[in-house]
Structure formats: structure tokens, C-alpha cells
């Protein structure tokens, strides 16, 4: 039991590390040179909550209209309901100096 929870925690950690890198990249793009550990962790927590909340909300809208798989409208409703502006998202997507983080490597699963 303890082993399985440990495994889940380490899996969360791996994703969180990547989120941490993503946050750092965005800060660097914005123009910061360095960051406090605490501010970085706060932003990482925020982005993690953001993703979870969008997922939850979009799923709610999707199920409310009797669908199983979320569509664009559900995601849009979720974002609007959270008060996130998607106004300049196209310009943001096309910004010149953007970095892309490598996707995590799939761990090799040993055969038993």
C-alpha cells in the first residue's frame, strides 16, 4: 500500500517538475532573470490548479449537455466562466521567442 502511494507521489512529482520548468520558461520569456523559490512554487501550484479547474469545469458543462466527450464549446465556457480572457490568444501563440519543453521520456517498464 505504502509503496503504491509512493509511486503515485513520485509520478506527480515528475509532472510537477515539468510544470516548474514551464513556469520558469514563461518567467524568463517575460523578462525576469531569477525567481524566489516560493514565488515559483506558488505559480506552479496556480497553474496546476488552473488545469484541474478547467478540466473539472469543462467536464461539468459537457455532462450537463448530455455528452460524454468534451468539445470546444465546453472548454470555452469553462474558460469564460473562470474569467480567463482568450482575447489575444492567437497573438500569444505566435509570439516570436517561445521555447518548447521536451515531452517526458516514457519510463521503461520491466517485464515480470
Amino acid at each position, binding site marked *: 500500500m505504502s509503496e503504491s502511494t509512493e509511486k503515485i507521489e513520485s509520478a506527480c512529482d515528475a509532472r510537477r517538475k515539468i510544470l516548474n520548468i*514551464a513556469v520558469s520558461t*514563461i518567467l524568463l520569456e517575460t523578462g525576469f532573470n531569477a525567481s*524566489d523559490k516560493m514565488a515559483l512554487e506558488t*505559480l506552479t501550484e*496556480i497553474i496546476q490548479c488552473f488545469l484541474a479547474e478547467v478540466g473539472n469545469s469543462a467536464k461539468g458543462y459537457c455532462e450537463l449537455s448530455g455528452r460524454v466527450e468534451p468539445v*470546444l464549446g465546453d472548454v470555452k465556457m469553462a474558460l469564460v466562466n473562470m474569467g480567463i480572457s482568450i482575447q489575444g490568444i492567437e497573438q500569444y501563440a505566435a509570439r516570436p521567442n517561445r521555447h518548447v519543453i521536451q515531452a517526458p521520456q516514457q519510463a521503461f517498464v520491466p517485464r515480470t
Partner: protein
Amino acid sequence: MQMSRLGTAMDEDGAGHALTDFLLQLENYNPSIPDSVVAYYLNMSGFESQDPRLIRLIALASQKFLSDVANDALQHCKMRTSSQMTQSTKNQKGPKEKKYVMTMEDLVPALQEYGISAKKPHYFV
């Protein structure tokens, strides 16, 4: 009555089309956050989609949100350091290049504007 209804429907359609077109562009676009990471957090909250473009859209929206917050914090930081610089340069010449460090001091007011109240624990080094 009918006209106004038609008008709003057209407006919604226009906005919807813009985002639909944008979604098509996301077919071969990579946001900073890897798809698999975003998908993991979305799956954890029950959102499961076969369409990777939706996941990319969410990743991009979260990135933009964070970027907006960071930009606000940077403005706070710049204002604070510039007021400090003018005080310190009266006595001696400071270093020319400025280094901006993200601290809670700048982050808290920036987050406040977006309706997030962050508090620093009192005795936490």
C-alpha cells in the same frame, strides 16, 4: 426582436468561428507545456478527450494567464527597483544592468488583480 436575436446569433457565430479556425491551427503547434503533462492533470479531474487540440488550447490558455500575471509582477518589480535606484544613485553609481528577480512582494499584488489572494506564511524562511 427577430433582428436582434439574429444579430446576437451572428456575433456568437463570428467569435465561435474565430476560435474554431484557431483550433485548426493548433493541429501542428507545440505549446511550452508538453501535451502529456496537461493531459495528466486534466484526466485527474475527469476530463478525457481524444482531441489533442483541445488539450493544446488549454495549455495555451494557462500559459497566457501565467504570462499576464508575470507581466504584471514585472511592472511592479520595475517600479519598485526604479524608485530604489533613484535613491541609491544619488550617493553612488549603481551597476548599469538591472536584474529582475521575481519575489512574493511583487507576485502578491499581481495575483490580487486577478482575484487570487496569496499569503506568505509568517515564520517561513
